[in-house]
């Protein structure tokens, strides 16, 4: 019972702080993109445009809620809710500090992967239920992409699991603080695994160069073409949450989580998560988009073989290097 209360308390704390970070994150991305594109970004609403995300939400909530003719109404309404739910889910097992974790499951890594893989359901449901050809094509692409990229993602996440010998995320972080961050040492399965994780995370959260399910230059807005108002806000939020939680998972699994010089703690975890989050934006506002078949090529012909190799290397490291674990 006390576990349930603890979980509920931390769930409220983590969800509310994630949403606050996302509000700032949207402002930051728009400023960041603005500077990259030699413009200013938001400046009008609030001091240095800080209230812009709030204005966006207020604007979107005022919009008429349009449901297309012959849409699958139940699925159409459910999809954005599920998207937010599943994208937030993985945050439950991520330790933000030695104590700040909602549910420190002993199969935490498995939980993250499982709930991440569920994201394909609301995405495809949205594409299917909209009764729109562009949305359907987007949903079709989303399924192919998410299912394919789940494979290298699972494999590279196995690298820290093998190296630390635990599936509990807090134990993986503790192991790193006692030894080295996995992105730093052992450098050979560690750093490439981190790079692959980052790529697969971009693909899983549908970010450029892998944002083909929404691909606005081809599919208008892909799966969200028919969504307006509050439901669109939910999809928009789910995308950010997914990226942010993915960054937090990356920071915990490869960058040592709360560990850091001077004073280990929550601040290091937040800093690392936000740095990864910024890297996602950086990639997003620089690169062009892959074509869907090239995406599959990249996944199955490059990433999967490399990831398999990395898993074997990690196993060999643990087996043959004395004092590796």
């Amino acid at each position, binding site marked *: 019972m006390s576990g349930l209360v603890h979980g509920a308390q931390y769930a409220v704390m983590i969800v509310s702080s994630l949403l606050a970070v996302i509000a700032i994150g949207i402002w930051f991305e728009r400023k960041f993109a603005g500077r990259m594109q030699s413009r200013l970004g938001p400046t009008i609403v609030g001091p240095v445009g800080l209230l812009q995300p709030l204005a966006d939400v207020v604007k979107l909530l005022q919009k008429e809620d349009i449901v297309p003719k012959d849409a699958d109404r139940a699925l159409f309404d459910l999809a954005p809710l599920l998207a937010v739910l599943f994208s937030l889910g993985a945050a439950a097992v991520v330790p933000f500090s030695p104590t700040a974790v909602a549910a420190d499951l002993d199969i935490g890594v498995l939980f993250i992967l499982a709930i991440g893989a569920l994201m394909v359901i609301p995405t495809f449901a949205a594409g299917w239920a909209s009764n729109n050809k562009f949305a359907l094509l987007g949903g079709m692409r989303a399924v192919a992409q998410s299912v394919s990229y789940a494979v290298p993602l699972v494999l590279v996440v196995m690298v820290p699991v093998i190296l630390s010998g635990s599936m509990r995320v807090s134990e993986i972080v503790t192991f790193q603080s006692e030894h080295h961050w996995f992105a730093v040492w052992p450098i050979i399965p560690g750093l490439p695994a981190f790079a692959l994780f980052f790529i697969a995370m971009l693909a899983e959260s549908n970010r450029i*160069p892998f944002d083909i399910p929404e691909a606005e230059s081809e599919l208008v807005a892909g799966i969200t073409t028919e969504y307006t108002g509050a439901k669109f806000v939910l999809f928009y939020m789910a995308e950010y949450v997914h990226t942010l939680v993915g960054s937090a998972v990356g920071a915990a699994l490869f960058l040592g989580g709360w560990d850091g010089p001077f004073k280990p703690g929550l601040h290091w975890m937040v800093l690392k998560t936000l740095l990864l989050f910024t890297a996602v934006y950086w990639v997003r506002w*620089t690169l062009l988009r892959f074509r869907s078949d090239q995406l599959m090529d990249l996944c199955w012909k490059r990433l999967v073989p490399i990831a398999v190799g990395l898993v074997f290397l990690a196993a060999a490291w643990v087996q043959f290097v004395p004092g590796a674990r």
Partner: protein
Amino acid sequence: MTEGLQSARRGAIDPHLSIRHYDADADLMLLHFGPQHPSTHGVFRMDLYLDGEVIVKATPFLGYLHRGVEKLCEKLTYVQQTPVVDKNDYVSPMINEQALNMAFEKLLKLEVPRRARWLRTLLAELQRLASHLLWLGTFTLDLGGALGGGSTLFLHCFRERELILDLFEELTGSRFHYNTHTIGGNRHDLPAGLAAKVEVALAAIAARLGEYEDLSLGHAIFQARTKGVGTLDSDLALELGITGPILRASGVDHDLRRDAPYHAYDELTVNVATEHAGDCFARASVRFAEMRESIRLCRAVLEGLPEGPIAASKAVRLPTAVKIASGQVYVGIEGPRGEIGTFVIAGGDTPTTPYRLKIRAPSMHALAAIPYVMPGATLSDAVAILGSLDPIMGEVDR
């Protein structure tokens, strides 16, 4: 009898313009791509028959931006037509104006002063540079999305294009629809100090072109998206009347600036860039080479700009001042998208209006390639191909 007729008809149908040759049982999706689609460069529509994501048949539909410009020109006097054709290819109005006024000058057998011809060369090359910059921006926007890397390059290209529009504004007082060419010369001479500003703008653009090349031509994703996509062979390109960078990318060494010189091009050397692959990447590289060539030509013009009058007579005239009794003429010049032509038959209702005026729009011919290059490509490729054809619907529909 009936059977013979049918087979004869079947033979007559161009396979690219029919889906009958495709398996009738296949479950094709008909996708109306446009006219309100973000990537159709205005109001263009394609009906795409898709098998999964692969295009089986593509039919272009034009006319959503038809304004009746050619008919309007029959009612306007020769002097009044220049500002109307500005709005045709709204990305290169200068060259539209030149193509129109050169036709009238040819009918009148009017000699344009040397300074005016050099000035027109300068304006044409600056306009070509501005137009290609806009093309690069919109093309990467098509490949990379409005919320991604594509828009970064797009806004950077717009920043550089702005430098050129600023120059045009200082010269003519207007950023887009200049109305600076008249029959027999130009309306506005270079103001003091503008030549130096042109040099500054050219230097800024030349310095940044390399960066844009790294972000586009040199980038692995750009290459993956464009190489081998939308291949157009030279025979088909010639048959469809395609000109300009698209034709040169298909391996035909043809450029009116060099092959039928006008303005000051006979006194300058024009290096014509060609590629042989005929795909989107080749079209992009040709346009990049043309931007560099335009910068070089602009500098050469500024160096050799002669002194003298800029119009054969007083530039601002009454609408009815130009009278042409009879005759017909065609003038084609090299625009950023290919041969912009004007065909005029003089002798309308009054001596001051033409009987018929036909504008040859290069984009329209480029769009004719769509039924041939789209089948076999994916939906993502369709956007890349359309972007590489660089259509401007204002001149296609007129």
